[in-house]
């Protein structure tokens, strides 16, 4: 492992732990009132994990599209690897969003799945980016694989905000997520602090994963190349 990714990974891990501490011990608890009784919804704590994961996922997916465009413009192989690695990391985080989202839904609303706009949006994104990997594996020639991968990463990245916007149209009636009633109403003070620490930690952690993955892709490319050279003799 390279030094840079090691530092990033440790910094990210520390921040994430700090975020968990802040979330549980400093940030205010979510409270619901039922018949004059106050109930603390601890499930809301997953918010400090779920949302940073989601935002990290979006950052990397958009980055994938950006590097895809750079590849098409310059035809430099390194941009293609950067695009592919970004989509991979983004995809892992999208799946994490789904898992944490489903857990939260289950704990809060008592069902495993709810056709709620944002959850639906992420399900669509999961399927769309699954398509990206299926597409790549379905193209044999290396250069065509890179080209189509880059093109679809751009199309998908463009579609990400559109999917979010469509989710806000009236047909899917929003069930909620703005609804966790908090003592401090909007996000401020300790809650914001906990959120930002988690958010920043998640980004650092994801970036370290990204760098490692990129190194791996480059090494693999080098090995493939050397193998071919040996075969040809």
């Amino acid at each position, binding site marked *: 492992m390279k030094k840079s990714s090691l530092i990033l990974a440790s910094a990210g891990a520390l921040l994430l732990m700090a975020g968990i501490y802040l979330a549980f011990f400093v940030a205010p608890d979510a409270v619901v009132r039922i018949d004059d009784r106050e109930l603390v919804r601890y499930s809301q704590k997953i918010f400090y994990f779920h949302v940073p994961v989601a935002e990290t996922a979006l950052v990397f997916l958009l980055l994938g599209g950006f590097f895809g465009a750079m590849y098409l413009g310059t*035809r430099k*192989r390194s941009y293609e690897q950067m695009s592919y690695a970004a989509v991979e990391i983004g995809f892992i985080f999208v799946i994490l969003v789904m898992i944490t989202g489903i857990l939260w839904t289950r704990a809060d609303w008592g069902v495993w799945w709810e056709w709620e706009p944002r959850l639906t949006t992420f399900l669509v994104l999961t399927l769309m980016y699954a398509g990206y990997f299926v597409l790549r594996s379905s193209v044999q020639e*290396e*250069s065509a694989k890179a080209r189509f991968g880059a093109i679809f990463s751009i199309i998908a990245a463009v579609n990400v905000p559109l999917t979010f916007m469509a989710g806000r149209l009236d047909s899917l009636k929003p069930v909620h997520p703005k609804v966790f009633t908090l003592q401090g109403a909007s996000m401020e003070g300790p809650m914001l602090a906990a959120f930002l620490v988690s958010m920043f930690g998640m980004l650092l952690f994801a970036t370290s994963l990204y760098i490692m993955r990129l190194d791996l892709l480059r090494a693999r*490319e080098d090995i493939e*190349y050397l193998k*071919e050279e040996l075969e*040809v003799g």
Partner: protein
Amino acid sequence: MPKQMAELLKNEKQPYTGAHAEIEVTGLSKYFGKRKVLTKISFELEKGGFLSLFGPNGAGKTTLVKILSTLVAPSEGTVSVAGLDPYKNSAAIRSKIGLISHSPLLYLDLSAEENLRFYGAMYGVDNVDARIDELLEQVELDHRRYDLVRTFSKGMMQRLAIARALLHRPSVLFLDEPHTGLDPHAVDIFESLLDTIRQDHTFIMITHNIERGLALCSKAMILYNGQIAFYQNKADLDTEMFNEIYRRKVKGEC
């Protein structure tokens, strides 16, 4: 003669190159990442010349032709076709080149005439009706001009494909394994047609057919692993050497 070329050609009998080369390739390389598809290809083809291109699958023959016909951008080196750079003047070059491939490049559900008319519109051919009449007569298909291409035999399709390729009066013709799938009779017709257009065009032909390839060409080249393994004028072609290299490189015998 460019320096790289002299280095590359270890054969003593280097081909003669005229002053006005129709196709000029210097130090052409194409790579993807570190993988090289073509490495430092240099050659020249004079106006009216005929280059036969041999080599195993994956040797880079198709990529070379695609670069010359503006479909693929080279990574390194310079290319000039009819005095133009394919990558910079792609539209201008495309109206000067034609392709006869092993697939006919024809729409099966259109008639012979409709196919030609469609490509005529693509190329902006002037007086397209007169040109179509002339060509259909030349390839002896005017009696079938309103029939769907779907009903044509393989040989007829190939003849129509030639008419299609000549429609816009190209000066350079690329032939991509044109003999594939043709019966001997169709080959005869095809080659007599080639004969009639031979002097006004420059040809590059990809082929696996040694006999036909050597008979037709003015220069022969074997590509292997993205490099020129053999390149000679037909006038002083060392047949033994050609066969030796062909056997070793293309067929993979030792």
